[in-house]
């Protein structure tokens, strides 16, 4: 790792020269009290009072975080996200004041991540630049996997233990087809509810080339529930950033359903290596298109539901209690015998997950996928 002072200088070079430039233009939604704190933070920073600046940043982050968590994400005023990003920026830089250690730099990078994921672009996308500098300076050269949190025990979480890529050849695999006709797909997979990987369907999407280049497409915004990094499900991403719609297309097979095209829910799923979606089922048909990275996916038929021990509360009855790759067979004995299909889904491939089919996902790499829920 390059010396702490080299890092510090690199960061200073990214920041505005003067205190006056280190500010945000904000609308009425942001209360005067918060504007006061923003000014105070900038002054403390320029006055070299890092510790107090950090304290003020924490207050700004706490307060704006609560705004980000109030109401549906679509209604969160962008100015609050900018306030949050500002707090993350100053916090990240303050944490890198020499003599910094690897832990502080890692914490600074985490602050940048939070600002990038929950905040909005400020000061010419400065957080992206700061993150890039921090990444380069980290000892191992590897970006530490951020620690996620979950809303419900049954939702997304990440696993950091080094789990090997499963040997899919010894497991029964999901069949693969190259551009089947609509009728063939309907007769053999949609109607009987059988999973299949469709090749040649999405590999031509512009995003397959474009999005692999950058790690975090700017403009990402998390959804209502998990508001922490680790795994972001981005509802209506494509409504917020219409340009991204041009990079994907709804699989033709969706026209076999009963619903309208407008009713198809498109979600984007972005997460680091190791991100796990615990075994669960969804009520609708799903096409999961892999854009970047690979995913290990296991599928169980709804007929096996009892052997998967779903939670018995109303809230979680579509989520299994079993940790698929590390099951407690004393508690869940029947799980061992439940038959399943598995696969490693690679970029350009689309997996058809029939409605109510139980599925478990683990990202083998930094991964980006797009799912289409349709009926």
């Amino acid at each position, binding site marked *: 790792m390059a010396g702490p002072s080299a890092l510090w200088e690199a960061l200073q070079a990214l920041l505005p020269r003067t205190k006056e430039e280190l500010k945000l233009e904000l609308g009425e939604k942001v*209360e*005067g*009290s*918060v504007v*006061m*704190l923003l000014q105070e933070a900038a002054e403390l920073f320029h006055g070299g009072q890092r*510790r107090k600046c*950090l*304290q*003020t940043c*924490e*207050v700004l982050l*706490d*307060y704006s975080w*609560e705004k980000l*968590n*109030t*109401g549906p994400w679509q209604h969160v005023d962008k100015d609050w996200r900018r306030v949050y990003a500002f707090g993350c920026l100053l916090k990240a830089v303050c944490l890198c004041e020499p003599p910094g250690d690897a832990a502080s730099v890692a914490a600074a990078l985490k602050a940048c991540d939070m600002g990038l994921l929950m905040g909005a672009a400020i000061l010419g996308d400065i957080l992206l630049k700061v993150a890039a500098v921090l990444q380069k300076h980290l000892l191992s050269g590897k970006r530490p996997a951020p*620690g996620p*949190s*979950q*809303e*419900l*025990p049954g939702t997304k979480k990440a696993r950091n233990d080094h789990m090997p890529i499963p040997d899919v050849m010894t497991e029964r695999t999901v069949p693969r087809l190259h551009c089947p006709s609509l009728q063939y797909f309907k007769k053999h997979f949609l109607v009987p509810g059988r999973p299949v990987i469709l090749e040649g369907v999405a590999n031509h999407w512009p995003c397959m080339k474009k999005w692999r280049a950058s790690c975090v497409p700017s403009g990402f915004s998390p959804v*209502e*529930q998990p508001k922490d990094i680790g795994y972001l499900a981005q509802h209506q991403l494509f409504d917020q950033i219409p340009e991204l719609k041009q990079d994907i297309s709804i699989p033709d097979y969706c026209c076999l359903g009963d619903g309208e095209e407008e009713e198809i829910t498109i979600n984007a799923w972005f997460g680091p290596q190791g991100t796990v979606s615990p075994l669960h089922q969804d009520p609708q048909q799903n096409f999961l298109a892999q854009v970047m990275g690979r995913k290990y996916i296991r599928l169980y038929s709804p007929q096996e539901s009892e052997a998967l021990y779903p939670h018995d*509360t*109303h*809230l979680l009855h579509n989520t299994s209690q079993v940790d698929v790759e590390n099951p407690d067979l004393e508690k869940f004995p029947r799980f061992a015998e439940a038959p399943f299909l598995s696969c490693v889904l690679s970029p350009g491939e689309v997996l058809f997950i029939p409605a109510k089919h139980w599925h478990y996902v683990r990202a083998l790499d930094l991964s980006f996928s797009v799912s289409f829920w349709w009926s």
Partner: protein
Amino acid sequence: MDEERRGTWFGFGFCGFGQALGSGLGRQVHSPEPVRMPGGSVDVCRVSASWSYTAFVTRGGRVQLSGAAGGAADGYTDACASEELLVLLRAGPGAGAELQAWAPGSALRGEPLWSHAVQEAEHGPNRDETQAGLLPLLPCARAYVSPRPSFYRPLAPTLRARRLELGAEHALLLDAAGQVFSWGSGRHGQLGHGTLEPEPEPRLLEALQGLRMAEVAAGGWHSVCLSETGDIYIWGWNESGQLALPTKSLAEDGKTTAGEASGLDEDGSEVKRVSAGEDGAPAPFIAVQPFPALLDLSPGSEAVKVSCGSRHTAVLTRTGELYTWGWETDPGFIYGSSSPSLTHSWCGI
């Protein structure tokens, strides 16, 4: 209603805006300290704390603001402070009571943003039960005040409301029979009906049916109520340990709430903060509790008062002990303490 006793107001928490908390020396006050009013000690009977300022109301009818918002005015009996709006209840001669909403930055000069004449409660057999002198529930208990438009919201006449609490996205109502109703957004389980679904109308908490509740309080995304026998029921979001249940960060880091801080009580003697033990082994954690859960503070303790911040909870027992738990910050760190800490013990108050 108990006869009001004069006492001393204590405050603690973040006061980076110069709110009249404690000695005013630090930006954070970690243990309760007596409140210092601008202009010397006065006879405060109501306090409403928002994030960046506090509103004090004296027995003489003066409302005084301290912190990011300043100013004072006479002729008021109650105040409800929030960042967007300060709502005041103006005393009126006879039936002339009026509700006023002010922008906090106005320093109470000029005109209020809006005002609304308040109907006096009708005399009748129901009068005692519908009496509720505290905002946001208005004296006639037929409506309540919300810091967001529409500011004045009537309640269904069938609800004989005794107390109303507003969270960031939900509302809790305690009625005359000790039943609890909730409505609003349920995304964090704060409604207590066992789902994450919203409720547009007040809905009875069936899980608590049959238990008479004495107090309710709402935090940002969690809810608490106390039964008449002093039991605590709590539900909603636990991401900062505000439900006193294990949180993910504590489970992961193995942090405990060990560590003591001392405070001063009235006679100047030190009071140590004692934490309930928690083993540091990574444990299962609860992020959302969508049903009321019973919380045991300590054997034999009876809770009599409860209050919530956006992500923390405070309970006062009959014997004068104050317990707090939930979100705390320290310079440079944020951690959740999900074990109730005995924050302060007042004897003889």
